[in-house]
Structure formats: C-alpha cells, structure tokens
C-alpha cells in the first residue's frame, strides 16, 4: 500500500470539504440531536481533523475538546495532540465522545472502544460514525493488530463492531444507516477526480462493476450508551 491514505490527499480534502467524511456536519448534528447532551457537557472529538465538528460543538455550547495525531486543527480551538489509541485522560472524564470516520483507521479496535468506555461517565454516550462492511463481506486481510492502510481496509463488519461495543460495556446501541451519504461523497469523487476515483476503485468498488457489484461498504451512525451505574 504505497499510496498515501485517501484523507491525506489534498485533492480529497478539497472535494469532501472541511469534514473529510460522508454526511458532513448535518450527520453530526443528527447524532447530537439523538444524544441530547446537557448544555456545557464535556465532549471529546477523537480525530478532530480540521476542526469542523469541534467548532460546531463549541457553537452548540458544549465544553468540547479536540484530539488528533496531526495538527490540522486551527489555532485557538481547544486541542490536544495525541494518538487515539492511548488517550491521556482520567477515567470518567467525559459526558460524550465523538468519533467520526476514525475507528476504521485504527488497529485494536476493541481496545480503543474499551478505552472510550473507560473515559465516559456512567450513562455517557459514544457517537460513532464510520464505514462498515455487510455481513460476509469484510476485507480479506483484516488483521486487527496492524495499522490499516485505509479506512476501507480497516472498516469493521457491522456485527463485529456491535459485539465489540457490547463487550466494551455499552448496553444500548442505536444504529442508523447513512450509506446514501457515502454514495453522495463517492459520486463527488467520481465526478471531480479521475485519479481519486481510480484510487477509490482500488480499495473497493463504489460504482457498479461488470458483474453488477461485489464488495461495497456502508456508512453507519452508532449511538452507544453506557449503563447509568
């Protein structure tokens, strides 16, 4: 996998806009509406990127903090540079964690999710949006200890992900599918970038191939809630 990750390509960022993921901020807003955090809630945006979601959270009046491995976040926003696999916070620090299109890039997802649960207060909520594979369609080499080369390669199967969430301690999981948003982003990539669309096709085919279709991922939103005690 010599090619750089998709999200690192300036052309991709250009096309996808400031939020480098399907659905954009309207999807984040939908998730926030379901979570209904109290005003001033302490939220952590894991993998905050250019800070679009972080800005939204702050505007909505939450005590939000952004975290990322790279420093694309504009100066002035509350930001911590760190790796998502080793979050430097005390247990029970947050009312909510936002994790959008990041989990698919991480190894050892079960540990990451268990860590999220640790950082949340009782009754805390995880807003997770990411790619996922339909049952029986996961990427052939899904070695959970290696760093995925791309979000497609690292995307979990839906069943596997929900099992990991349950094992991490979340007792209620609300799922909605937003594959249409993924398709819209894919459509934009096809429309605007020939070199990008072939990159897309290499990872997985989002437009119909000669056989009609084979592996295509979905995009989903999971709101996972910890028990109150």
């Amino acid at each position: 996998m010599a090619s750089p990750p998709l999200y690192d390509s300036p052309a991709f960022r250009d096309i996808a806009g400031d939020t480098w993921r399907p659905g954009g901020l309207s999807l984040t807003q939908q998730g926030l509406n379901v979570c209904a955090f109290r005003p001033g809630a302490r939220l952590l945006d894991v993998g905050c990127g250019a800070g679009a979601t972080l800005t939204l959270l702050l505007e909505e009046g939450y005590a939000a903090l952004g975290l990322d491995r790279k420093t694309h976040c504009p100066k002035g926003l509350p930001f911590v540079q760190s790796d998502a696999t080793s979050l430097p916070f005390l247990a029970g620090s947050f009312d909510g964690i936002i994790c959008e299109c990041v989990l698919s890039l991480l190894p050892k997802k079960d540990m990451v999710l268990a860590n999220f649960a640790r950082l949340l207060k009782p009754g805390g909520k995880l807003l997770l949006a990411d790619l996922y594979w339909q049952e029986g369609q996961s990427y052939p080499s899904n070695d959970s200890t290696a760093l995925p080369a791309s979000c497609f390669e690292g995307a979990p199967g839906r069943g596997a992900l929900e099992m990991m969430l349950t094992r991490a301690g979340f007792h209620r999981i609300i799922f909605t599918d937003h594959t249409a948003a993924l398709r819209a982003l894919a459509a934009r990539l096809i429309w605007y970038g020939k070199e990008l669309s072939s990159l897309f096709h290499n990872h997985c085919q989002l437009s119909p191939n000669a056989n009609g279709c084979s592996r295509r991922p979905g995009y989903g939103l999971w709101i996972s809630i910890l028990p109150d005690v």
Partner: protein
Amino acid sequence: MALDPEFKPDHGDWYCTSCDVPLQQQKVQVLYMNSAFDVILPRCPECGLTMIPESLANGKMAEVEALLEDK
C-alpha cells in the same frame, strides 16, 4: 474549484441560433438526488442555453446517476 471537470463539445463548432453568438465555457451546477455537482460546459453567454455533450451524458453522468440510485 481547480478540480471542476470541463467538457467541450464532442465535435464541431457550435453557436446559439437564437442569439447568434458563439458558445463559451462556463461553470454550471447540475443537480441529482440531493447532490449538486459543478461542471464547466459550453453555454450561450447571452441566454444561458447549455450543452450536455454525449460523452458527458453517457460517461460521468451515467456513472454518478447509477451510483446515487444504487442501481
């Protein structure tokens, strides 16, 4: 945006018969299923009559339409 696709007529030297002026490459927005896409197309600068070349219709448009419809 630097990446906007551009399509010229597939062949020929076209002009608008109502306005009798040659066409210019201008940016327009095409719409489909809640998504909008920018593209630069041959267009009459006076009346705005816009051409969709066959290569665009049967190429990118067909591909994106099928993708969005999930056909």
